[in-house]
Structures are given as structure tokens and as C-alpha cells.
């Protein structure tokens, strides 16, 4: 029943970095916690509480297993935004006075950047590392930035707009060597690529439920126990989650996240192959049929289900209006309502006009070849149509170098 509902959604969903459909198997695992197993998992005096707690603890182990952690190192939160806030603010505040420096990158998710900006206002020093044209940070720049005053280095695992995967293991090694904690926002990476918190020396790692076919409203933060990472809780109260995050847990949501992680652990490898196939099918077809398309971000170091493409000489908004049948986005969901060009693309050195014409296309578990082909048709048709109407395209085609033109000021 659920799968029919999922497949019936009329637009072709190609926005898997914004959110993913709930896997029907996940919903099935959650169902008992909506009905008979309704207890408060923190109720210690009766079986209603115990059976909810049992579900939560099984889920905790499933989450831990996916990233090679111990279950005692997993803190449930309301989502990756909360996890990122807790990791960065929590660690920065705990080591305040001893280590007042934070290192992050300019292409981080807004919730990391906003948190860092807030900490700057509170007197912390923040280094925002630039990225190279392929979206990856320069490890030598990182090494130079981290000092004995750095409490935390926060570098995302995979970028939400361009999908590039940072060299986690190398970053982890540098942080360990310098004695700074390494936090990674892995909302877009967990369940998509192999992550091992020990092999990669990751000290804190943020997970989102709804990016991995689990429910919205749940996430997790991995907090290393050896060597122990200490942090200041941001939500206080009943002392749940080892005092790091108070509030009644939602067993259904925890169980959903756990099941999503368990499925990802089992299927990640084969799914990656399939998604890379769909992605390449899409990219090859687009490149064959449209000139002047540019891929943003490194193709090799990238999660399998993401593309970010600029279509030169096309106005982004008009393209979005044209391809209404496709649910794609022109940047991250959080900022997609704004007309600002993506700060991520700008950080790669993509010019403003090109940043304006970019689409983020996300493939995922329920994407079919047929949908990919339809999407190619739609995009080719509309890009061609818009270019046909564009005087700039006409000029470029007749060999005029647009950059040489001195536009009259209005």
C-alpha cells in the first residue's frame, strides 16, 4: 500500500538531497510504536516504558553499526541541524577559555555556518577555509589553520549541493595530530558512502533520518568516548541521552532511523553501483545533446546520487518554471526560495550567471531509468527552447565573446 502511494506522486522526484521518501520497510518497523508500543521510553516503572526503550536501544545499535561506532556513542537528536548545533556549540563552549578557535569551510551547510557566525559574535575565532575549484578543501591549508587553540574542526563529509566528498581520513589524521576534535556533518554521506569513525579519526558526526529514507524529525550525533569528547548540552532537562540532550525521545522515530541505517548498511554497496549508473546515464545523455553544460564539483569524489549542472545561457528561474514535471532544485532546499546564487557554487569560483543557471539533480533508491530518461528529455527540450529565445546564446553561437562586450549602464 505504502509503495503505491510513494510511486503515485506525479512529479518525477529528483531532489534526493533535499529529502528522501520514507522506505516502506522503515515505516513498517515504526508502526508498532504508533500503536501498542506507545510508552515513554524513559518510564522506568512499567513494561510500556521498557518495550519502548528496547526499540530505542536496538535502533541506537543499528545507527552505531553503520558508522563503526559503539552504541554508547550515539545521541539521538531532532535532526542533523540540531546535531550540528550541539556538536559545534557544545564543544566550543566546553573548551572555552582554553581553546577558542574553530575551523570550518565556506561550503558548509547553513546550520554549521550560522552556528559558527554566532560563536564569532560570542568571542570565538573562526577560520573559514576556502575550497578548490572541485569543491574539496586543500589539506595543506587545513594543516596550517589548525593550531593548539583549535577546539573543533567541522568539515562536512558530503556537500548538500554538489555532493563532493571531502578527504575525511586525511582530515581526521591532521586533527588527531594537532589535538583538535574533528566533527563532520555527514547528513548527506551516511548510508551513501562507507564511513568508519575509527579509521577516519572522526570525533563527532551528524546524521539525519530523512536524508537516508528514514523519518523527518530525527537525527543523531556520534560523540566519541575514547578519547572522550566533552560538550555542553544545548537542551537541558530530564537528563536523557547521557545528559547531552534532554527531552522525551520519540521511539517511533528512533526505530525508523535505526531501520533506515540497517537497510543502508546492507544495500549501500549495490545501491551505489545502481545510482552511479543512473547518474552516468543522465550526464552522458545531457552532454551528448546539449553543448555548454558544466558539471559543478568533482565527479570522482562524490556521492553516487548527485549531480549539479550549470546550463549556460539559460535563465535559472525560467528553466525551473519550464521543467515543472521534475522536482529538482536550484540549490539547497533551505535557501531555494531565495533568488540569491548559491554560495557553494560561488565558493568554487563559478561565476554568478553560471551559478544562476544551475540545477541540483538528486537520484535515489526509488529513481528508475525511465524517470532519468524522461528528465533528460524535459531538460533538453526546455534548455533548447530557452536558448533559442536568448540573444546571448545567438551571439555566442555566432562567435561573439560576450565577456568582451561593454554593456551600457542602465
Amino acid at each position, binding site marked *: 500500500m*505504502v509503495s503505491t502511494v*510513494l510511486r503515485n*506522486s506525479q*512529479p518525477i*522526484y529528483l*531532489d534526493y538531497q*533535499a*529529502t*528522501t521518501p*520514507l522506505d516502506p520497510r522503515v515505516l513498517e518497523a515504526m508502526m508498532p510504536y*504508533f500503536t501498542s508500543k*506507545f*510508552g*515513554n521510553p*524513559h*518510564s*522506568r*516503572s*512499567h*513494561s*510500556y*516504558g521498557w518495550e519502548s526503550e528496547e526499540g530505542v536501544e536496538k535502533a541506537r545499535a543499528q545507527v552505531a553499526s553503520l558508522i563503526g561506532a559503539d552504541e554508547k556513542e550515539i545521541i539521538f537528536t*531532532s535532526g*542533523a*541541524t540540531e546535531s*550540528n*548545533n550541539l556538536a559545534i556549540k557544545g564543544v566550543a563552549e566546553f573548551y572555552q577559555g582554553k581553546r577558542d578557535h574553530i575551523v570550518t569551510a565556506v561550503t558548509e*551547510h*547553513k*546550520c554549521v555556518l*550560522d*552556528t559558527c557566525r*554566532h560563536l564569532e559574535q560570542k568571542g570565538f575565532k573562526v577560520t573559514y577555509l576556502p575550497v578548490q575549484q572541485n569543491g574539496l578543501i586543500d589539506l595543506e591549508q587545513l594543516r596550517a589553520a589548525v593550531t593548539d587553540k583549535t577546539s573543533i574542526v567541522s568539515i562536512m563529509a558530503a556537500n548538500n549541493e554538489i555532493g563532493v566528498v571531502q578527504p575525511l581520513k586525511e582530515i581526521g589524521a591532521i586533527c588527531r595530530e594537532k589535538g583538535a576534535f574533528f566533527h563532520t556533518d555527514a547528513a548527506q554521506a551516511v548510508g551513501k558512502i562507507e564511513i568508519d569513525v575509527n579509521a577516519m579519526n572522526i570525533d563527532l558526526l551528524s546524521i539525519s533520518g*530523512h536524508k537516508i529514507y528514514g*523519518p*523527518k*524529525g*530525527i537525527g543523531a550525533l556520534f560523540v566519541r568516548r575514547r578519547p572522550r569528547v566533552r560538550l555542553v548540552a544545548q*537542551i*537541558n*532537562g*530530564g*537528563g*536523557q*541521552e547521557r545528559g547531552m540532550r534532554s*527531552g*522525551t*525521545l*520519540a*521511539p*517511533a*522515530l528512533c526505530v525508523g532511523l535505526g531501520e533506515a541505517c540497517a537497510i543502508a548498511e546492507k544495500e549501500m554497496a549495490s545501491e551505489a553501483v545502481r545510482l552511479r549508473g543512473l547518474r552516468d546515464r543522465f550526464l552522458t545523455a545531457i552532454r551528448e545533446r546539449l553543448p555548454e553544460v558544466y558539471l559543478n564539483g568533482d565527479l570522482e569524489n562524490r556521492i553516487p546520487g548527485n549531480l549539479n549542472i550549470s546550463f549556460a545561457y539559460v535563465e535559472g528561474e525560467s528553466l525551473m518554471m519550464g521543467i*515543472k514535471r521534475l*522536482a*529538482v*532544485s536550484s540549490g*539547497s*532546499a*533551505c535557501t*531555494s526560495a531565495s533568488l540569491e546564487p548559491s554560495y557553494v557554487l560561488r565558493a568554487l569560483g563559478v561565476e554568478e550567471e553560471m551559478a544562476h543557471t544551475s540545477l541540483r539533480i538528486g537520484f535515489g533508491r526509488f529513481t528508475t531509468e525511465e524517470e532519468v530518461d524522461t528528465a533528460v528529455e524535459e531538460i533538453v527540450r526546455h534548455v533548447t527552447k530557452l536558448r533559442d529565445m536568448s540573444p546571448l546564446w545567438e551571439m555566442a553561437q555566432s562567435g561573439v565573446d560576450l565577456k568582451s562586450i561593454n554593456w551600457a549602464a542602465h
Partner: protein
Amino acid sequence: MKSAPIYLDHNATAPMLAAARDAVIDAMARTGNPSSVHATGRAARHLVESAREQVARSVGAAAPEIVFTGSGTEANNFALRGVDGPVLISAVEHDSVAAARPDAIAIPVDGDGIVDLRALEALVAQHRPALVSVMLANNETGAIQPIDEVARIARRARALIHCDAVQAFGKIAVDVAALDVDLLSVSAHKIGGPQGVGALIARGNVALEPLLRGGGQEKRRRAGTENVAGIAGFGVAAAAVNDHLKMAEATRALRDGLEARIVAAMPGARIFAAGTRRLPNTTCVGMPGIGAETQLMAFDLAGIAVSAGAACSSGKVTASRVLRAMGASEEEARCAIRVSFGRGNSVSDVERFVAAWMALAMRRGSNGGATIRAA
């Protein structure tokens, strides 16, 4: 023969309403990030905004005043930590208020757990607080605070007023205008909605420092992708609170019946906050001489789910901070349990509870020779 278990711990969490559950599951089966501009995203946005209307209406607020959070605890933290300057809180607040601001100044309460308004006036004059936070109803005893009077005093000193209505919502009428508060916390799972959603109602869009920063959701007041399904379920549960309120008298009859029989059987038994207005579903009852832990075990064996105070992190039963603040001795506080009724409970549940209670009291004998009469 083992009979079906009885759930008398609705203040810890309430089973989900069928309609709320349906709404959650229906929304779960749909994709879409409410911040995405495409049709799929807009459909998700619509679910969130309809729920916002429903929650707003249920407390007499306007939709833009609702900020969805991940829990009641988060809503309380948001309110308490969102303001600069001194904060006054009652001595019987939930941990999520008390721990959010360890520097808060406590307003003393009387023997029924009601804030001392005279003391409040003096504290307000002395500390010039930025915020006064008093809960609408206590989670352990059900005692209802005179929020309108608290508000009057706080307003005169130009302090903001926050009210933790997590436990009261759905059990008595809650109206932000009548209460005259600036900030009000509610939670979905206490009213038959899903766990993992709460809301802070910020009237007149009081400016608060956000707790979670990032994508600019909830008008930049609370970052993070919205828990669409949870919020949809919350909306449906909120729309049904008036139905809950219609059951209040029946619930009260169960609760009062239970108390009457226990007190008649054992005059030494103490009903906490009995001298004041309480939530109709809650009783906090002390069985002298028998620790709460022992009682809970006995009730669990009898298939009855009750608790000792709040359901939080610690499995240890310690003397309730709330009861101690009401002047109960350590010993009295250690011997109290909370019974909270809800949808689905009946007279036979009361019978079974009383029978189990009596059996335990008789088995253990009574404290200092208090008599146990046949019930």
C-alpha cells in the same frame, strides 16, 4: 489468569489518537521538504501550515505565533534561554525549565505547590526579571497555578511571562489570551499526538535568541527541516483537545473515586495538592512507610502502569523535588506515586488499582499503626 495491563501513566505519555496516527502515517508516505519550491515541497509545506493553524486555534493563538520544536523540553529551553537577564521560576517547575536556567531564582510555593504571590511580588521588585516562568499545571501533582495573577504581577515589572503548559494542555482549557502570557510551551505526545514534536507559542512574536541555528525555518526562530509527519499528527491531536475536555468530568470522577477509597481505607494516606485546583486526571498519593520503588514494583506485578514523578533519565527513585518544595518531608516524598488517567480508563481500572494498593498496604502493614479499613 493474567488480565490486560492497565495504563495509568498518561502524564508520562498518552497513546496516540487514531486520527493523529492516520495523519502521521499518511504524511510519512509522502515525500517533500517543506522548504523546496517544487510541487512536492509545497505539498509538505501545506501540511505544516495547516497543522500550525490547528495548534494555534487550540490555544487561542495566531498561526504565525507558533514555533514548532522537537519536544516540550526544547520549547521550554528555547523560552528560558532565549532571553537575556534574570529569570524567576516557581520551585516546582519541570526539569526542562529548571535545568535550562540553573541561575534562575525560585519562587516559593505553599503546601499545595501553588506559587506564593506575595513572595513573587517581592522577588520581582528585587530582581527586575526579564522573564517569569510558571507552569500551568504540575506534572506530578496536577496542581494548577494562578497564571493570570502571576502575569499581572510580572507585567507590572515589564517582565515577559512564560508558561509551561505541557501537562495542562488537553486536560484543561488553555487560552493564551486568557492566561495573558507571552510564551507558552506545549507538547504533542501528551495530548494524543506523536512523540518528537512540541511547540513554543511566542505571542506578538516576542524576540528570542534561537536555540538551533541554520536553514531559517520557522521564520528563523528554529532551524532544521520540519518534522512534517509529526507536525501533521500534532495538528490533528490539537484539533481534538476540545473532545478531551468533554471527558474531563468522567476522568475526574475516576480520580476522585480512587482518592476517596484510598483515604477511607487508610487515613494516613496523603493526597498531595488536594487543597487546590488540580488537573482532573492526576493524583499524587503517598502510602506512608512504603517507598515508591516498592509500590511501583507491586503495581507492575499487578499489571498496572504508574510512576513516581516524572519519567526522565534516571531509573532511580529519589524523593521528588516538587513534593519537597511543597514542604513534604523526605520520607513523605519518597513514598509518593503518581497516577494519571486518560482516554480508555474505566471504573474497573480504579477497582484494580485500589485492590492492588490495599493488598500492598496490608501486606506491608501500616506506618506507625495507622489503620487499614476494609474497602
